[in-house]
């Protein structure tokens, strides 16, 4: 695992290395979400060896009465407010992928990162059993890459590259 490369809080005000990209949906003309929640389940399973609502780093939003289905996750922001908000320096930038990551050992469960995330709903989950925040790390430790992209049956998820 890549270690924290932001040594002090002061460093966080400097610019952050960009992530390679973020997980996004493809153009609906190309393919659409079929409302299966596979992305959520595989995401939780490969990170936690367990599945549950508090373990997933990606969410499918569904309204079966209006026929609206889409998935969303962390944008791997260029200037990530979550990283800047962490009082424990528990958040770090993965060297290989640039993913904004949480060091589980350092996280004290204060949830300040969740409150700092500017998108609605926030893209960080909270595991109330372990009392740790969890978020998308672009599956940086997986040889096959992002498992949500790998297993989505309709191929409607992609790693959208930051140029």
């Amino acid at each position, binding site marked *: 695992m890549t270690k924290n490369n932001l040594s002090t809080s002061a460093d966080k005000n400097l610019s952050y290395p960009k992530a390679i990209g973020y997980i996004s949906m*493809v153009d*609906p*003309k*190309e*393919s*659409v979400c*079929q*409302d*299966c*929640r*596979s992305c959520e*389940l*595989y995401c*939780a*399973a*490969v990170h*936690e*060896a*367990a*599945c*549950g*609502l*508090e*373990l997933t780093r990606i*969410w499918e*939003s*569904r*309204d*079966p*009465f*209006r*026929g609206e*289905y889409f998935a969303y996750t962390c944008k791997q922001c260029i200037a990530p407010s979550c990283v800047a908000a962490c009082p424990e320096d528990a958040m770090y930038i993965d060297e290989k992928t640039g993913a904004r990551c949480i060091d589980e050992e350092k996280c004290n469960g204060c949830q300040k990162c969740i409150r700092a995330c500017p998108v609605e709903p926030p893209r960080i989950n909270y595991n*109330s*059993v372990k009392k740790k925040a969890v978020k998308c790390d672009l599956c940086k430790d997986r040889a096959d890459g992002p*498992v949500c992209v790998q*297993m989505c*049956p*309709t*191929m*409607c998820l992609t790693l959208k590259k930051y140029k």
Partner: protein
Amino acid sequence: MSEQYGWAGQILRVNLSTGAFSTIDTMKYVPKYIGGYGIALRLFWEEMKPGIKAFDPENKVFIMNGVASGTMSPSSGRVNFLGISPHSYPEQPTNTSIGGHFPARLKWNGYDGIILEGKSEEPCYLVIENGKPRLEPAKGLWGLGLIDSQQILQDRYGKNRCDIYGIGPAGENLIRYAIVGCGAHNATGQGGMGAVLGSKKLKAIVLVGGKHQVKVKDPEAAIKAILEFYPKKRKRPMIYANLGDKPDNPWWPEWTGGKDIFDNHAKDWMGSIHNMPYPIFAKSCATGCLGGCGFFEFKNVPAVSRPGLALGMTGCVHTRYEQFFDRLEGEKNFEKGFEVHVLAQQLGFNHHEINYGIVPWLHYTKQLGIDTESLMGMPTDVRDHEWWIKLLNMIVYRKGFGDTLAEGLRRTVEILGPEKYWFPEYQGPEAAREGDTNPVKYPVAGIGGWGYVSRGILADHGMGPAGALPGALCWMIDTRDSHHNKWPDWIHDQFLGYVMKEPDKYGTPFVIKWAKDATMRGILIDCLPACFQFPLRKHMGWQWDHEEIGEGTKSTGFEARLFSAVTGVEVTEAEYYKAGESIH
């Protein structure tokens, strides 16, 4: 309890008479009974005394998810309902299943199942919020449509925060073939479990939140196994096409496997809807679905007889509503069928009984000059959508002859006299698709095993032994409609192959072995659980890197591997099959 994999470890018991809640320990029953239907059956035989009728407060409903529910195991978003069925003839234990995201959320609320017993004095609904159950009054919901009442509950408990199973007026009014449904489409189908919930005055079950974490023994091993039988992935945009036409349908070659013999099957299954001016979206109907087997969701379809836009899903038995209208002269024919379809779902009917049973029966008796019109008090016209709306309302509110039809077609012909109203043979165009297919030939009442009207079983394929025998054999050894857990194409293909090649159709052990294997596989699927299309249908537009997987011949082995990957309990395919035998 927190250390085990897969199972949550407890089953919730809800006594609707007293409002008391208790739990029982799942681990007493596993791994021997696997989960899902296996445990439900075991509990049924432990707890149910002989002589209990479907609408007695003593009838219990065992609602069980499975060991794989709430994990990434493919197509695992199913639960089983088991109880004494009011739909079955005679009333007897029957199981059925339903999908959606409720099964996973039940596990995430910390339960492997719910046992409903007793009967509430007043209409109520059950809420389980982060594992904690409570009963709420349902006065403002009782009488509302299945879809409308769910929308109110979703607004109350939060979008993406809750999953709901409910009943419509059909369940409330004890229509023997009422469904339990979720969303705009999913249903328990056969068995009349909606009427059993209605008899208990239970309008809905709402699952909210859920903090339980389902441990998976070896996720990467499970992914490896899943990828082996994962169909070749393909992008799935919205499609603008007439699925009933070969040149238009992008999946036609795959639906039919390039074989002419499957043309009719492909049309019958999903496709034969014409003049459909809306984009087609193949939506999954359960958590973890690998492919969206071919149910199509349409939204913003204008209603015809009242203002408003409708959303619904069509496919399989549902397409019949649209097929009754889609080739007529004039305007808005798809919309007329769709409106009737969505109304039937709102009211909470089992579509088989309506559009393979009652409506064709009224049509065929008329063609043969058997007077059912004076019973109905109106002329029968299956091409008039206003007629359909009147019919559905007559049945659901038990008005006039609707009160008899509410008992189901099997009981209706029993009351009227089977000699005149069941056995006469109709030969001619099929009710929904005049002029489109070969003439059909069968009794006027399309009744299959145990009094169910069933698509494609016994009564209505007209395929001779190939159509009738598999269903008959499965019906003999199980009370569930075999169409719904034992009937993927590959099983049918095997049987068809046998019928084609074998000169002595009845003198070989093949048929017995076939029926037993089909039943075991169906049972094991209901225990894991997985959708019965698992591992997807060969003729549903899917292809595999290893073509034999599309044939499904090793599918029980896949299920055994998934069971091991999720639970850490090593089983061979033979051991898994044996567990199915002991459950049955």
